[in-house]
């Protein structure tokens, strides 16, 4: 036992829980914490805006599966974190946020930089705490990490009053941690439920696997691949699921949903058994719900009981962690393969062939150009560079969808996208977090010209830490995705989407002391990319692409997924050419 200040206990508790880096920004009430950090080995990364501390913590968490840690001061610091926390909540990413709060004696008196962080973060977190007693600090940090990473992961916020940070108490690493009475983790499904699921699976003639982020949270990639192989069933991923099954796997079809491939969406439409694994039947996946997998019976596996039957009624719901559930299923599938599994195998193989043929016949289409860099062509180039091995973070918009369509991922935890919240400004700070987590991996941030400007100040963090992330701005001079909707659904009345006054990338990079450049001519693209990736340090590459290009296929909002717009209307294509 040693006598420590609250600030010291906080930091020691973070270290005890395995924190390797804290992304944060200091302020008045967190001064005691920063005074401890001054001489403490725990790494603190000074970001340039608290929102990016939360995004960077997510970048770390998405790359490792461990909780990312961010820190902010009271009031504006805490409110700046919220977007990143809601984002982590939507995508089920483990984050622990530490915020300072004004001294207890001042709470409720509209003190300087007081905000009701506990109240504000209620709906932005999986759980949150306000610590007013130093005796509870260590235990609270422990609970926060446990809650963040276990079950369905998510963000947890710990708000600590300044007087707690300044007071002293005994601290020891080995403390009895009380159990959380209201927080029960799901057990594995019982053998009977597994048996029913196995029967369900073998009864299918056209089984189709729809797998999402839950599989990645659960580190169940190997089990997922084996499951698909045993069942001999095609598999589509949600945006969150990309990389769980390697893109090159013969059973992998593509991403499904609003900008999913023709084959992925037709597969889901035609299947007779839909197996949802760690997914939540999000509206951007299902489109019009009653037309989604209309002829299919549904088996839904999720760790969160509240997801089963939320959007689509499951004929069979299995509550549990994807990894043990898939293991149990695989075991029984392997055992029954030559018995139960033989009955409908012919039909299943024909189905697999049919879906594969759709995939072959309907690749993601785009027109090549010698005059302009096509955004899809840029993604293909980046894919070649990555070879399915780089960590790729994206922002939100057209570039995000093109990247999802065209890049390969050989492993889980390589692809990072703000998927549920769709928060612009995510890509760049997430890449920072990922690079801190995985210094040996190539980290590429593919961002739009709009979203890049939202995260611009982080060039400062990247420069200060010489963080060798490669920032590729897919510059279409417009808020492309909004423009696309205006083009297709608002009669081309382009309203407030012109962000053409993009700064000169090499000057901008130079101003921050990092390398950078721009490329416009398709003939120069290879060289520009080679240059960017050969540079040992960070690089900002601005790639000027065709402005008027739409992401296809597209399921219009609220439409049925099999009613995709596959290609531009001829008339629209002319308009593109005429511009």
């Amino acid at each position, binding site marked *: 036992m040693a006598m420590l200040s609250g600030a010291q206990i906080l930091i020691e508790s973070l270290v005890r829980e395995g924190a390797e880096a804290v992304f944060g920004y200091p302020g008045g009430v967190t001064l005691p914490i920063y005074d401890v950090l001054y001489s403490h080995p725990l790494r603190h990364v000074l970001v340039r805006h608290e929102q990016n501390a939360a995004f960077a913590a997510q970048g770390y968490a998405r790359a490792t599966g461990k909780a990312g840690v961010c820190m902010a001061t009271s009031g504006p610091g805490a409110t700046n974190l919220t977007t990143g926390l809601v984002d982590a909540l939507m995508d089920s990413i483990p984050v622990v946020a530490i915020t300072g709060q004004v001294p207890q004696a001042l709470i409720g008196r509209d003190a300087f930089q007081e905000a009701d962080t*506990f*109240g504000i973060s*209620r*709906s932005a977190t*999986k*759980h*949150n*705490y*306000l610590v007013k007693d130093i005796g509870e600090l260590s235990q609270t940090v422990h609970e926060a990490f446990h*809650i963040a990473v276990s079950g369905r992961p998510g963000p947890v916020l710990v708000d600590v009053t300044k007087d707690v940070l300044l007071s002293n108490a005994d601290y020891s690493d080995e403390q009895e941690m009380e159990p*959380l*009475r*209201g*927080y029960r983790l799901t057990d594995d499904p019982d053998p009977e439920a597994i048996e029913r699921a196995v029967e369900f699976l073998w009864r299918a003639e056209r089984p189709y696997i729809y797998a999402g982020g839950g599989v990645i949270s659960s580190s169940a990639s190997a089990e997922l691949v084996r499951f698909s192989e045993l069942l001999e069933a095609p598999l589509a991923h949600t945006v969150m699921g990309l990389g769980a099954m390697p893109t090159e796997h013969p059973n992998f079809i593509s991403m499904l949903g609003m900008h999913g491939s023709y084959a992925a969406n037709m597969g889901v439409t035609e299947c007779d058994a839909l197996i949802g694994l760690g997914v939540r039947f999000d509206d951007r996946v299902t489109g019009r719900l009653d037309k989604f997998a209309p002829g299919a019976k549904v088996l839904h596996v999720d760790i*969160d*009981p*509240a997801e089963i*039957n*939320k959007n689509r009624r499951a004929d069979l719901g299995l509550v549990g962690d994807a990894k043990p559930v898939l293991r149990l299923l695989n075991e029984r599938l392997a055992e029954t393969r030559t018995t139960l599994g033989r009955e409908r195998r012919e039909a299943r193989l024909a189905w697999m062939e049919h879906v594969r043929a759709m995939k072959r016949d309907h690749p993601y289409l785009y027109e090549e150009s010698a005059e302009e860099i096509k955004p899809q062509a840029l993604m293909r180039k980046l894919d070649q560079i990555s070879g399915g091995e780089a960590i790729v973070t994206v922002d939100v918009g057209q570039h995000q969808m093109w990247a999802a369509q065209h890049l390969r991922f050989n492993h889980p935890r390589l692809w990072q996208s703000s998927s549920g919240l769709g928060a612009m400004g995510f890509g760049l700070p997430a890449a920072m977090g990922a690079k801190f987590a995985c210094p040996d991996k190539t980290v590429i941030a593919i961002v739009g010209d709009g979203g890049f400007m939202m995260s611009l100040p982080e060039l400062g963090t990247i420069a200060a830490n010489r963080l060798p992330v490669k920032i590729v701005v897919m510059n279409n001079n417009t808020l492309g995705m909004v423009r696309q909707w205006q083009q297709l659904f608002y009669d081309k009345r382009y309203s407030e989407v012109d962000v053409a006054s993009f700064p000169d990338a090499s000057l901008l990079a130079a101003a921050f002391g990092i390398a950078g450049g721009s490329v416009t001519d398709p003939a120069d693209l290879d060289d520009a990319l080679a240059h960017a990736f050969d540079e040992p340090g960070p690089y900002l590459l601005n790639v000027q692409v065709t402005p008027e290009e739409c992401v296809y296929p597209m399921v219009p909002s609220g439409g049925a997924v099999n009613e995709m717009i596959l290609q531009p209307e001829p008339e629209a294509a002319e308009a593109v050419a005429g511009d």
Partner: protein
Amino acid sequence: MQQLISLLVENKPGALMRVAGVLTSRGYNIESLTVAKTVDPTLSIMTIVAEVGEDGRDLLIKQISRLVNVIKAVDLTDSRAVRRELVLIKIYVEEERRPALLTEVEIFRARVVDASPKAYTIEATGSPDKLNALIALLRSYGPIEMVRSGAMAMARAKQNKLPVPSYTEAALSEG
């Protein structure tokens, strides 16, 4: 429709806010909400009556259940649970009608808990329906003011079953 929900929650700061938040963020109106400690003072039981669509009922219970401070959430809407409510009614009644009023109060097994020259204060408990009937009746005597506690509910004990050690959880489970 009105959904009746009973919750066993940890008696911790923020627990009420979280539960209420699940309801309010969906735009459900909370008709009533009562909360107080159980025999175990670290736990509380909440009874909530809220206007929830038929589709939303099951999901709401699950989403409340997943809150870290919630130990158990039960939908008692269709159950035979004992439901009780307390009401305090101040009634301004003329001298000559008081005896008749007192007889009515008696019938409802309500009590006069305060009397002044102009008004009586009456306390009554019972099912919400019974209290509604009482209130309607009293209104015919004169202007009233009232405070209602909102419903409290307790699942009926299972037959042939002794109290379990975790009595607070038992209070929520259906018999």
